[in-house]
């Protein structure tokens, strides 16, 4: 803005009545266009502002920007672009037409296809994943060079900016925010666990306690026996959260010293009791007292409502020992052990402890997980609660790999009136409520069969809300082509006045959309 303009605007702001100054000329050639000094100052002010505006706009000159050598352009992307139809599907998802869980599946399909996100939607996905950290591991591998380049521009997207460049990583580790440093450490662990651990150990003593608590869990990435000494030392940390994080890590580490100590404490307490004319049972003797070493290992750290204090200690101990230990110790299969525990006075304590321990190993379908689930669906409702719902959560996360049909068998073991048992409907819902990725066809078919056989009596359910919930989670979990194929056969059973009609309509529209989504990735890129 020129001096002249500034002067005029200043005059207009304070008003000619107050300004008292005369309007000075604008110089040739504009002055010639303006009326003589005879007319009112207000009229001349307006004409001058208008004329100067036109003058400036028609004679605009673009200023030079200092050279931006420090932000080089993104390199060419090695990943191919996303198929056109799939891009259209993503646009629908981002406009919020379909359930939010589908976005995660779309991202997975794109990753499996080996392609990258369309550039025009990069800001939307960076923003979505910023708000929902669960999406970040799905977004990061499909960002492409453009996405990494873009993420560097905003501080809140830094989690996505971490490239494979070691210099950048060191910088993020030394100077980044705590979220960035956690993300950096996790990525680093994935590349080089030992170097990442060393970096954490070097910084450990100077980190404030809340940072120690935030950083330590990153060691869960590629956790190994080499990490044990360091984590064990963190059990003596002054901050409670750090000690808890260290315990969680050691429990996940097979054969850790912590779990050996727990095993040694438990062995004297457990005994198989042979009874005359009755089934044998597992007897538990409650521990006498708690000492400093037990407290250090986390015994008594968790409250167990509804159970005695000492019983709670036993759960803490059992939860830290790989349940396979007990197969050897008592020379029995998991099913037999569960049967032994069921008739024990402390059935809930034993089974809760085993369930928590078996959930630490979520790498594959451990027989304990499945056997506990089987036991739970057959158990009396009072005992069923010993197995936490979260066990079905863990099963749900590995359901995609149900190659040996363990889960199919579990669903097959449901009683024929399963749909009138709200607890079972809820368990199936928990199993399905993981959105990410589809179940294998076998499992999908089995679940659909179970629903199909329930169709005739669904209209009279006492708890339709639980079944609605189940349908909405199944819509995201079932293999879409298998589920879409049954839609025609179910029309007859779901009449327009059926109380679950709208839930089934939504179910099929979601399933069909997912089917289209999967197909959209099959055309060549």
């Amino acid at each position: 803005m020129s001096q002249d303009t500034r002067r005029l605007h200043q005059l207009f702001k304070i008003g000619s009545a107050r300004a008292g100054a005369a309007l000075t000329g604008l110089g040739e050639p504009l002055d010639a266009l303006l009326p003589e000094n005879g007319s009112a100052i207000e009229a001349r002010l307006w004409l001058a502002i208008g004329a100067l505006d036109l003058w400036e706009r028609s004679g605009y000159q673009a200023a030079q920007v200092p050279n931006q050598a420090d932000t080089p352009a993104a390199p060419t992307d090695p990943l191919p672009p996303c198929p056109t139809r799939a891009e259209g599907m993503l646009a629908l998802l981002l406009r919020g037409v379909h359930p939010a869980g589908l976005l995660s599946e779309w991202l997975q399909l794109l990753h499996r296809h080996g392609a990258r996100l369309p550039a025009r939607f990069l800001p939307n996905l960076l923003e979505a994943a910023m708000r929902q950290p669960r999406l970040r591991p799905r977004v990061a591998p499909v960002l492409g060079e453009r996405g990494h380049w873009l993420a560097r521009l905003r501080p809140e997207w830094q989690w996505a900016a971490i490239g494979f460049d070691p210099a950048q990583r060191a910088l993020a580790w030394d100077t980044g925010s705590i979220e960035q440093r956690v993300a950096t450490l996790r990525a680093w662990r994935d590349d080089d666990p030992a170097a990442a651990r060393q970096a954490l150990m070097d910084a450990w003593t100077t980190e404030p306690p809340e940072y120690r608590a935030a950083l330590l869990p990153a060691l869960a990435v590629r956790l190994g026996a080499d990490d044990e000494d360091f984590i064990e030392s963190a059990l003596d940390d002054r901050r409670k959260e750090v000690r808890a994080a260290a315990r969680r890590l050691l429990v996940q580490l097979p054969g850790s010293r912590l779990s050996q100590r727990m095993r040694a404490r438990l062995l004297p307490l457990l005994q198989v009791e042979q009874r005359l004319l009755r089934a044998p049972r597992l007897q538990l003797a409650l521990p006498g007292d708690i000492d400093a070493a037990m407290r250090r290992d986390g015994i008594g750290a968790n409250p167990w409502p509804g159970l005695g204090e000492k019983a709670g200690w036993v759960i803490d101990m059992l939860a830290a020992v790989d349940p396979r230990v007990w197969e050897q110790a008592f020379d029995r299969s998991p099913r037999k052990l569960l049967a032994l525990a069921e008739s024990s006075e402390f059935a809930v304590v034993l089974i809760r402890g085993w369930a928590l321990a078996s959930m630490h190993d979520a790498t594959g379908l451990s027989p304990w997980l499945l056997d506990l689930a089987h036991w739970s669906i057959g158990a009396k409702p009072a005992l069923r609660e010993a197995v936490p719902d979260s066990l079905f959560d863990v099963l749900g996360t590995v359901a995609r790999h149900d190659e040996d049909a363990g889960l199919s068998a579990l669903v097959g073991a449901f009683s024929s009136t399963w749909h009138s048992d709200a607890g079972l409907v809820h368990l199936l819902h928990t199993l399905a409520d993981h959105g990410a990725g589809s179940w294998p066809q076998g499992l999908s078919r089995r679940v659909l069969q179970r629903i199909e056989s329930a169709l005739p009596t669904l209209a009279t359910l006492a708890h339709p809300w639980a079944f609605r919930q189940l349908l909405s989670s199944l819509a995201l979990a079932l293999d879409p082509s298998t589920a879409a194929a049954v839609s025609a056969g179910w029309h007859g059973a779901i009449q327009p006045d059926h109380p679950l009609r709208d839930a089934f309509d939504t179910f099929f529209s979601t399933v069909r959309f997912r089917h289209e989504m999967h197909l959209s990735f099959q055309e060549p890129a």
Partner: protein
Amino acid sequence: MAVPRNWSNLGRSEAALWGECQGSGKNPYRTQIDLGDPAFKCSCPSRKFPCKHGLGLYLLLAAEPALFNSGDAPAWVNDWLQSRQQRQEKKAAKPETSPEAAAAAAVQAHKREEKREDKVDAGLRELQTWLHDLAREGLAAVRSRGQGFWDAIAARMVDAQAAPLARRLRRAGGMLYQSNLPHAEQLAAHELASLYLLGEAWRRLDELPAPLQVDVRTLLGWTVSQEDVLREAPVEDHWRVLSQTVSEDERLRMRASWLHGVASGRWALVLQYAVGTQGFEQGLVPGTAFDGALHFYPGAFPLRALVGQQAGVRPLADGPGPASNIDALLDEYAHALAAQPFLERFPALLAGLIPDAGGQGILRDAQGRRIELQPSFRHAIYLLALSAGHPLTVFGEWDGRALLPLSVWHEARLYNIDSDFIS
């Protein structure tokens, strides 16, 4: 509605699409679409147009084309298609009016026109006095009076039948109370000064060149009828649709599309209006091109146009056209302002622009010069995502100081900012 379960007797021919949809009634609704326009008809009682069945039928075709049997249309479809054709033929043959009636109507119109001119004249005098008072008191002093101060003078302009002035006065006042607008006072001052100049132009209307007179009258609220525009000589060309924005005011939606003629090099702005849920009459899709004839509204620098004929719509394959650079743009803009100083929108197609990664809201050209983006532009991060540091070809509107990007050409595709980005 786009669910196969609801439909039966689905079919399609080259001219039409049909199906029967089971609704809440006993008999299924007969839904049909004339693929030519397209036009919809349905036997349902809905007053929405097109109704949900018509849209559902179309969506179903898009989703699962295999469900439609191709073959001869049933009688109820053929009857409708025929009656449509007859109606169109009737419409083409317009009734003639007698010369006496035409003369009487002309006299009436002339009287109305004189009355309106008087009203506008009085309104502009009032506005001039108001602006003088404003300059005397100073902008800072009236600021505290709030939007009501501006609404009052705007209401006076509505009474004076100068509706566009009312809109611009409200907008100028609104700028002052918009918290995130940089340089709001200067922008308001420029807008008000432009209104002042418009009043001056009206006062000396007879001294202005004839085309500019039309512009001044248009800016004061006179409209040129579509029939009159369509009588202007057509400009035949291959037209590229380079951008489209839809804005909504109450229930009236306005769609603005910028077109560029391949042979003539002319720019055209097509404004279309639709009320409520209605669709727009003519199809214009950004990123496509067509052969057609445009009729331009008269004026000193004609930009606004109507589409007379349109044929051979196809995707834009060969790029957005010859892009210019900032120097050429400024030259063209200066010439345009010289011819029509009240020009509000000016099209600019610029190649080789790199969005600045540091200060968002700036583009750099190949010589490293800065082009600012208008403060109302909210998609700078999307331009950065497309560019990633590489040059882009950007189409937008230039206002003399800043650019409002409307579309981007990237990797052999046109991205219309209003519709292709989701924010």
